[in-house]
């Protein structure tokens, strides 16, 4: 006797999701093999945004590469700027003035907030609720206003310099930042009421695409995606750099609040909670920031000693690491960039098996990938 499924053979459908698709967060192409609505296999195809940033890095000087790090993760340019500066300073052994370090931490945390805001907003937009996206953009505009004051640009900041930052904080900047924090902090519970704990939203995310702690470590996930799986690992705390040891903050991890540990909702909540922690860090940094110079003396024709260095820092989308080999000339001999989003794509195919098409969107959003980071 044949079952109905055998009597009516069905075909798998091959769907091209992307490179042009509203919710792949850029030019990501996902090859979906689906059985009706159920995804049999989802294979990400990356590389549509490859700009050979690593090769460019080998052709320009250390200082000239700074604006290119803006394009590494355009939603968190400050973090990438600072990561590059820290990497080169580690390579050359440059002592950075303390005020500069504080400024870097302040801008990096502000940018973490704005980046997580976009992650939150675009994720909810992917889930079909468009309004929270606009609210998150509204808050992000304020951060952009602050950044415009400090460096003159609103998206690609190019603010850090090797040996410090390009300019001291403008008059009244810290007060304005405090104002923003006071304004922003009550917004987080509002987001939670508006969408995070909405029943539909919860149902869409809980128990979807679970990445266990072992898997997360094995696949090399970093940042909020790793912490969402319940692994409390934060480079700011576990491999401290800059002035982070002087600042107190919690490492947010996924708790399996509404489902299994490591599902989409956990990853989402880690980001929401990290915004709170960033606010905390910012308040401390603003209180502690010392006076002083903001740029160390670095020769104009900067030639670091021959050698190699790997420096990683905690960016909003995971660990951004720069592996630089210097041969003592003005250009790096070899530059390798390790980014959180690229590594995250490895686990994509594994966790999306057996989900539905709508979940693919949720997974992409919860991993908070950004394409320039994937393709570099």
């Amino acid at each position, binding site marked *: 006797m044949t079952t109905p499924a055998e009597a009516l053979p069905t075909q798998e459908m091959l769907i091209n999701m992307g490179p042009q698709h509203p919710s792949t967060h850029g030019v990501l192409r996902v090859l979906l093999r689906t059985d009706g609505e159920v995804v049999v296999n989802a294979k990400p195809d990356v590389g549509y945004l490859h700009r050979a940033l690593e090769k460019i890095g080998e052709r*320009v000087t250390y*200082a*000239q*590469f*700074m*604006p*290119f790090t*803006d394009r590494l993760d355009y939603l968190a340019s400050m973090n990438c700027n600072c990561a590059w500066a820290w990497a080169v300073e580690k390579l050359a052994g440059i002592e950075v003035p303390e005020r500069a370090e504080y400024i870097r931490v302040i801008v990096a945390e502000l940018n973490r907030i704005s980046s997580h805001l976009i992650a939150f907003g675009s994720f909810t937009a992917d889930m079909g609720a468009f*309004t929270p996206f606009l*609210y998150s953009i*509204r808050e992000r*505009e304020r951060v952009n*206003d602050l950044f*415009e*004051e*400090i*460096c*003159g*640009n609103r998206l*690609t900041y*190019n603010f850090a310099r090797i040996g410090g930052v*390009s*300019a001291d904080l*403008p008059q009244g900047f810290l007060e304005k930042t405090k104002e923003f924090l006071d304004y922003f902090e009550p917004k987080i519970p*509002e987001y939670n*009421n*508006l*969408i995070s*704990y*909405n*029943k*539909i939203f919860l149902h869409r995310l809980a128990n979807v695409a679970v990445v266990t702690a072992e898997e997360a470590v094995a696949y090399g996930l970093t940042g909020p995606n790793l912490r969402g799986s319940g692994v409390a690992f934060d480079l700011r705390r576990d491999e401290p750099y800059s002035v982070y040891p002087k600042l107190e903050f919690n490492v947010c991890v996924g708790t399996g609040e509404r489902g299994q540990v490591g599902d989409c909702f956990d990853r989402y909540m880690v980001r929401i909670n990290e915004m709170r922690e960033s606010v905390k860090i910012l308040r401390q940094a603003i209180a502690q920031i010392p006076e002083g110079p903001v740029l160390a003396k670095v020769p104009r024709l900067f030639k670091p000693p021959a050698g190699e260095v790997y420096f990683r820092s905690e960016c909003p989308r995971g660990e951004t690491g720069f592996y630089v080999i210097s041969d003592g000339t003005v250009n790096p001999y070899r530059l390798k960039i390790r980014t959180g989003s690229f590594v995250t794509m490895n686990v994509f195919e594994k966790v999306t098996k057996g989900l539905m098409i709508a979940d693919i969107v949720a997974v992409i959003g919860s991993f908070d990938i950004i394409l320039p980071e994937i393709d570099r």
Partner: protein
Amino acid sequence: MGLKQYIADIVEAVVTTAKGMRITARYGVDAKEEITQQYPEVRREPSERFRGFLHNDIARCTSCTMCVKVCPVDCISLEAVRGADKKMVLASYDINIGRCMYCGLCVEACPTKCLTHTSGYEKASVDRGELILHFVHEDPAEIKARVAKQVAEAAAKAAEAAKAAEAAKAAESPKMTESLRPGKAEGSIVPAAPAFAAAVGNPGGGNPGGPKAPDAAKEEWEKKG
């Protein structure tokens, strides 16, 4: 799934939806929450450090090429020739703002601070060529030819002066020659020098002096305004 859970689910769905709708309703009703600025009519003031289009005040530019060297995307092109007084004369200074990524490295590198960011950010164009900003409005070939002529003239003058000096040296006693030399040398350079002074002093066009007489050239610049 027990009945209790079933009802709890329904209640949670209703309550969370109501919570969300209360928030959206508050924003919907409260007109003060509107944050849109109607752009072409209302413009927000860019900050002091705003990185808009680049502008080069070429009267102060020394053609040191620092900006060209530091630019990561090679959007600045500069041509300069050495003038009669050993200073560089700009033949052309173009910035391709279609290529520029507004990183500001050139502005930081500029030693005379003549290269600055303006607050301009509106330049839509259907022609890519329009995105290249020219700061020297004269034909580079003309400038080059003119400067070359000046250099040649100056060289000729210098040679003449040298000849004259030699002749004087030959005519007069060695002692006298030494005392006269400075004055004579100064005199010999006079024709070339004003032209240059005028060129450097001119704020607008920034044309280094023409092959014509200095006064005529000055009039021409004033016309250009």
